Each structure stands twice: as structure tokens, then as C-alpha cells.
């Protein structure tokens, strides 16, 4: 493997890993803030216990999300210096704004939330978790604006003399149509993920008839969030598919492994074919569905990979403009499939626990527990699809991935970084999952009675 391959592998592994934690952080910050709001408004103790319980799991997850985020910012310069030189005038701005607007907000107010339980007035303390949550959501907006610019560059001009893209309109970059559909898709997916965490952990406790006062409402809350956010994911995903068809038709064609333009185009749920996708052996198809996804009309024409390849050769010169189809084809299906699976489990959870019921079947509960994996897999494949489907470009139509890598960094150096970070991340994953399981199983804490002792004299309520 050369430096380019290694840098790509590193980016893939490091980023997918980072994004296992990010959606849980974003989604759970909202749910924890919601539970705390319910406690502040009603004064019911089980809301406070739920807030503390889910808050702790949220923090265990957040720790890894935040430290792996620093690598994200650094690796553009480390592994992709030619990319950074080419796009910095545009791409750097949302990253800097993300730091100034979002990361300060998130980290400062989360510190206040963690350590402020006894120090701040109730309502002010509640405001800190909402502000931290706002920080995570703002951060998603700016980083998605940066990524959307790579999918669909807008508001720029190429300066041939400087050999770079230059910003002409920050408004265009921040209101890129790609951003506007990707942001709600991502946020609803984050909420879905967090809802699934609630469902899974609650199912573990309810299977044992443990702390039902806390975990029955949590299960219901989680399941409703999964279902409602899931509908949002579907709607925004549908909008995204149409924007994608218009802006990156090759990605849509690669999602279906559609080699030749079709009208109407069917959608295959499952295909067995040769590995390069040139030949189809067997498939299960839904007629006209791809046409509908891509164009909004059951009879719309969807362009095929081979047709687009010819168009792109004329537009951009000789070269291979096809993404690696087996990856795009399967990642697209796995994203949809596992997202749907999470919704199915949530619907089942609501059905089987309706009206105070509690099913005896242990398999139902086990399905609930393992459903935690479904949105994580769906999120990962969503990003793998989005990024792999853009290849060979790093910035669609103007910069290829092969021209983005750092020219001065050798394969050995990238390999050191890739292997080192992967090992470190692996160890951290084992530790994180261990802690998450430990605290998930421990259940919600009892709230100590107020002894009337002055807060100043008591030990810290929450300390590292």
C-alpha cells in the first residue's frame, strides 16, 4: 500500500470510529436535557434518577467522541496537505467557526453541567445542558457544511495562478442545498441512535423487572424517539437522494449498481453478482422504486454508470470516474436496512409494552438489547456510502483524492499513524464498552435525601 491508500484507510477507520460516538453524544444530549427539563418542571424524582443515569452513560460516550475529534481536525493537515492547500480558503472557515461557536459552547457548558449540580440554581443548571446540546448540534451544522462543500462545491472560484479554490460567497457555502438536506438527515439519525440506546438499556433492565419506574418510561421515550426520528430520517433521506441524483448522479447510479441508463429504473433489494458488479446473477427487485427515489416520479430516467463515465470523460478528461460499486451498492442497502431494523424493534417495543404489559418472552427483550447496534451500523454505512460514492473525487468535479494527499509524508509515516491510532482506538473501545455496560447494568442511582446540611460543607456531589 502506498501513502495514498494508507491515508484513505486511516481517514475511513478514524472517521467511522469517531462517528460511532458522535450521534450518541448529539442525540443523548437532547434526551438528557429533555429528562432534566421534565424533572425541573414536575419535580418527580424518577425523572431526576433517569437524568443522572442516562447522563452518566452520555458522559462515558462523550469522552471518546471529544478526544477523537481532535484527530479529525489535525489529519487534514497531516495526511491531506495538498487538499488543505487547495480548499483551505473555503473549507477552513466552517472548521474555525465550528471551534469558536460550537466547541467552546459544548465543552464549557458540559463542564458546568457535570460539576454544577450543587453549585448552580436548578434552572440555570438546566440551561447548561441545553447549551451544551446546542453546541453539539451547531458543530454538526458547520462540519456538514464543510463536507457538503466537498459533495457539491458552491460559492467559489478556481484561482489558477495560486492553484486553489477561493471563497466567493460564505452565504452560498452555509446554505448549500446539500447541507440543508444533510443536516436534518444527520440530526434525526442522531436522535434515532440515542433513542435506540434508551430502548436497549431499558430492555435489559425490564427483562429483569428492575427499576420499572425509571426504565418503563425510558423505554417508551426511546421507542417513540426512534420512530419519530426514523420518519424524519426517511423523509430527509428521500430529499437527499433527489439532491444527490441532481448533483452527483454517479453516486446514485453506484448506489444501485445501475450500469445503463433506465426509464423507469427498478430498485434491487438484494443482488448476487460478480464482484465488480459487471454481471448480475440474481436479484430481488421493486419496479420503478429507484426512479421514484431519484427523481420523485415512478417513470423518471436514472442515468447509468457507463453513460456517466462517458459524460465525465468529456467533461474532465480521460480517467476512471466510477466509485467502487460493491461498496456503494451494499453500504446504501445496509444503511437503509439497519435504520429500518431499529424502527421495527422500537415499534415492537411499544406494541408489546402497551397498556402496562410486560412480555414474558426473553427473545423480545434480547432483540431490544441488541437493537443498539442497528443505528450504529446504519450511521457508519451512511458515511461510507457518502464518501466512497464521491470517489475518485475529494471535492466533486474539482479535486481528486489522489491529488489531495500530503506529498512530503511517506508511506511509513502514515502507516505508523494509522496502526498507532487504530491500536489506541481499539484499546479505548474495549475500555469504553466495559464502562458503558457496567454503568448501564448498575441502574439508576438512588437520590440521597436532603440532609439540610449546607451545600458548602458537603463533599462534592460530582467529582472526577
Amino acid at each position, binding site marked *: 500500500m502506498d501513502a495514498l491508500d494508507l491515508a484513505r484507510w486511516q481517514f475511513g477507520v478514524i472517521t467511522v470510529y469517531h462517528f460511532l460516538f458522535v450521534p450518541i453524544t448529539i442525540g443523548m444530549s437532547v434526551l438528557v436535557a429533555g429528562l432534566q427539563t421534565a424533572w425541573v418542571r414536575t419535580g418527580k424524582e424518577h425523572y431526576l434518577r433517569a437524568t443522572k443515569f442516562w447522563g452518566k452513560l452520555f*458522559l*462515558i460516550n462523550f*469522552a471518546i467522541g*471529544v*478526544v*477523537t*475529534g*481532535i*484527530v479529525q*481536525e*489535525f489529519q487534514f*493537515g*497531516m495526511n491531506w*496537505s*495538498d487538499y*488543505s*492547500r487547495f480548499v*483551505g*480558503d*473555503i*473549507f*477552513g*472557515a466552517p*472548521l*474555525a*467557526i465550528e*471551534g*469558536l*461557536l460550537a*466547541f*467552546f*459552547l459544548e*465543552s*464549557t*457548558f458540559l*463542564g*458546568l453541567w*457535570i*460539576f*454544577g449540580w450543587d*453549585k*448552580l440554581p436548578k434552572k440555570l443548571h438546566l440551561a447548561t445542558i441545553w447549551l451544551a446540546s446546542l453546541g453539539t448540534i451547531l458543530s454538526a451544522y458547520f462540519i456538514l457544511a464543510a463536507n457538503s462543500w466537498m459533495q457539491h462545491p458552491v460559492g467559489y472560484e478556481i484561482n489558477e495562478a495560486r492553484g*486553489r479554490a477561493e*471563497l466567493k460567497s*460564505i452565504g452560498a457555502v452555509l446554505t448549500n442545498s446539500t447541507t440543508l438536506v444533510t443536516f436534518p438527515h444527520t440530526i434525526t439519525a442522531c436522535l434515532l441512535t440515542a433513542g435506540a440506546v434508551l430502548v436497549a438499556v431499558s430492555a435489559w433492565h425490564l427483562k429483569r423487572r428492575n427499576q420499572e419506574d425509571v426504565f418503563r418510561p425510558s423505554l417508551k421515550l426511546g421507542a417513540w424517539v426512534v420512530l419519530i426520528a426514523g420518519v424524519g430520517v426517511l423523509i430527509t433521506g428521500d430529499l437527499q437522494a433527489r439532491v444527490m441524483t441532481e448533483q452527483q448522479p454517479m453516486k446514485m447510479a453506484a448506489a444501485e449498481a445501475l450500469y445503463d441508463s433506465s426509464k423507469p429504473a427498478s430498485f434491487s433489494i438484494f443482488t448476487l453478482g460478480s464482484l465488480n458488479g459487471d454481471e448480475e446473477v440474481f436479484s430481488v427487485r421493486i419496479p420503478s422504486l429507484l426512479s421514484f427515489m431519484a427523481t420523485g416520479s415512478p417513470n423518471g430516467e436514472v442515468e447509468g454508470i457507463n453513460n456517466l463515465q462517458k459524460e465525465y470523460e468529456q467533461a474532465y478528461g480521460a480517467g476512471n470516474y466510477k466509485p467502487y460499486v460493491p461498496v456503494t451498492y451494499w453500504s446504501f442497502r445496509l444503511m437503509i436496512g439497519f435504520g429500518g431494523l431499529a424502527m421495527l424493534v422500537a415499534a415492537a417495543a411499544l406494541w408489546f409494552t402497551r397498556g402496562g404489559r410486560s412480555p414474558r418472552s426473553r427473545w423480545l427483550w434480547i432483540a431490544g438489547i441488541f437493537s443498539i447496534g442497528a443505528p450504529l451500523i446504519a450511521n457508519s454505512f451512511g458515511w461510507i456510502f457518502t464518501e466512497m460514492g464521491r470517489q475518485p473525487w475529494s471535492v466533486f468535479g474539482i479535486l481528486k483524492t489522489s491529488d489531495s494527499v500530503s506529498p*512530503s*509524508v511517506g508511506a511509513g*509515516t502514515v502507516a*505508523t*499513524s494509522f496502526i*498507532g*491510532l487504530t491500536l*489506541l482506538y481499539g484499546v479505548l473501545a474495549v*475500555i469504553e464498552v466495559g*464502562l458503558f455496560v*457496567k454503568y448501564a447494568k448498575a441502574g439508576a442511582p438512588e437520590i440521597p435525601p436532603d440532609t439540610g446540611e449546607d451545600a458548602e460543607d458537603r*463533599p*462534592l456531589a460530582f*467529582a*472526577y
Partner: protein
Amino acid sequence: MELTTVWFALITILWAGYFLLEGFDFGVGILLPFLGRDNRERRLLINTIGPVWDGNEVWLIVAGGATFAAFPEWYATLFSGFYLPLLLILAALIIRGVAFEYRGKRDGEQWKTRWDWSIFVGSLLPAILWGVAFGNIVRGVRLDEHHEYVGSFFNLLNPYSLLGGLTTLVLFTLHGAVFLALKTDGEMRQRANALASRIGIPAVAIAAAFLIWTAIAHFDGVGVALFAVAALALVGALVANRLGREGWAFIATGATLVLAVVGLFVTLFPDVMPSSLDAANSLNVDNASSTPYTLKVMTWVAVFFTPIVLLYQGWTYWVFRKRLTVEKIPV
């Protein structure tokens, strides 16, 4: 003033802020095995920075992002050129951040000891490596005509830069000791104060050697003046510490760090990364910068939001202003 100068100044401020803030929390991490005799004392030390270390670290992330946005060529050359030191810094910051969160989440001597070591190493490495990195930036590195770094990792480990690394190490450690004397009470307060006094003299000697070397090798009138004030502030910090005036001592070590960083950047200006191969290959505020339009946009963002950030971050320090004692740590 030209916008490129404004952004050079803003990035200077971000680094100065980073050294000022994360400087003391690195110091606390480095002092953990020396001042914390048992688990409860080590918890006390960690909790002095508990609510703020993460916000402090964001200064680094924003400095990186601002460099990317305002001087993409600088960002690209610096990060690809200083690859291995930055990788070490990343690994250190990762294990350190996780250690703060996870240390208290399980009982058991071994679990806590491992995270204590993570905090120590995760604070020690960046405290040295940032000084090495800045030493190299001021000294100049091997940049070719495409602004690519063509030196090796070992070229970065030269005597001047290593002295820079030692300087940030002792200054951060001293800054941390003074901070602990300010933030704790009882026996820990006295121990931190005594330790600050002990490392004070070597810190002055090392920092003075580095600043004098810088002043001679890369003379800049304003830079030298700033270094002189920084050195005075450092001596003032030691005096205040002896007199038990912890607030003044902390302000003085903070001023030392800020003035030293500003002095280094002033010395550097208008270059941002001089080339040691050929002055024509150097990166400066003009050939490294973004377009005037991008700089203008970013200036507006900075003008609006920086004061807000300073306000709420300052408020956090106000909320957690109380001294901590070991009695406040749950058994």
C-alpha cells in the same frame, strides 16, 4: 492594519490563550505523581481542573481551525511537516482526556494507577513537544520551493528547539504549581507553594537561556522587550509565591507565558514558517494567507463571537472559584 496582520495577531492570541489556560492544567497533570500522595489527594488535584480542562483544550482546536482558515499554506506545511510530534501530541491528548473522565469510574488500585500515569504522560509529552514545535518554527525548518517540509523527524530535535521544549515544560509545571497553591487549601496549598519555590530558580534559568538564545539568534527589538518583561514577570511570580500572594503569582506566571508567546510571534512576523534552506522558500503572512474576502468574513465572526466566549468561559472560572480541600473529596 492589513487583515493578514490581524489574523496573525488573532492566532498569536489563540496560542497565548492556549498556553495560559492549558498550561496550568498540563502542569497539574505533571505534578500529579509528585503532589498527590494518595488517591484522595490525586482526586483533589484532578478536580481543581475538572470543570475547565476541556474548555481550555478548545483553544488549541480553534487555533488549528483559525490557522486552516486564515493561513491554509501554513496549516498544511506545519501539520504535514511536524507529523510525528503532532501524532504524539494527539495520542497524549487522547489518553489524557479519557483518563480524566474514566479514572473515577471504577474502583481498584490498578485501574486508577494506570489512568494516573496516562494523565502524567499525557500532560508531560505535549508540555515538551509544543515548546519543541515552536522552537522549530522560530528557528526555521527545511522548506523547499513548494513549501513542503523536506527535513526528517530528527532535524526537529535540535538543541535550540529541545531547550524550547524544556522551557515550556518548566513554565507549565511552575504555572500548574502556582495554580494549585491558589486553588487548594490546607496542607496541599503549602506543598504546592513550596514546590513552586523549589522549581522556580531552575525555571528562571532555563527560560532565560531560551529567551536570550532567541534574542541573539533571531533579534527583534519588540520581541526582546517582551522577553524582558516576561522574565521580570517570572521573577515577580517567584517573589509573590514566597510572600504567599497566590493570586499575584498566578497572574505573573500567566503573564510570563503570554508575553513569551507574543514575543516569539513578534520575532517571527512577517514570516509564519521561515525556511532554513532558502529565505525565498519561507512562508509569510502574504504567501500563506487566504483571500481578503475569507479573512473579512472570519474577522466578523471573530469580532462577534470571541467576546461571548470569553464572557462565558470567564464565568465558569467564577463559578468554580472556591478553593478545594481534600475534605471535599468523597471517600
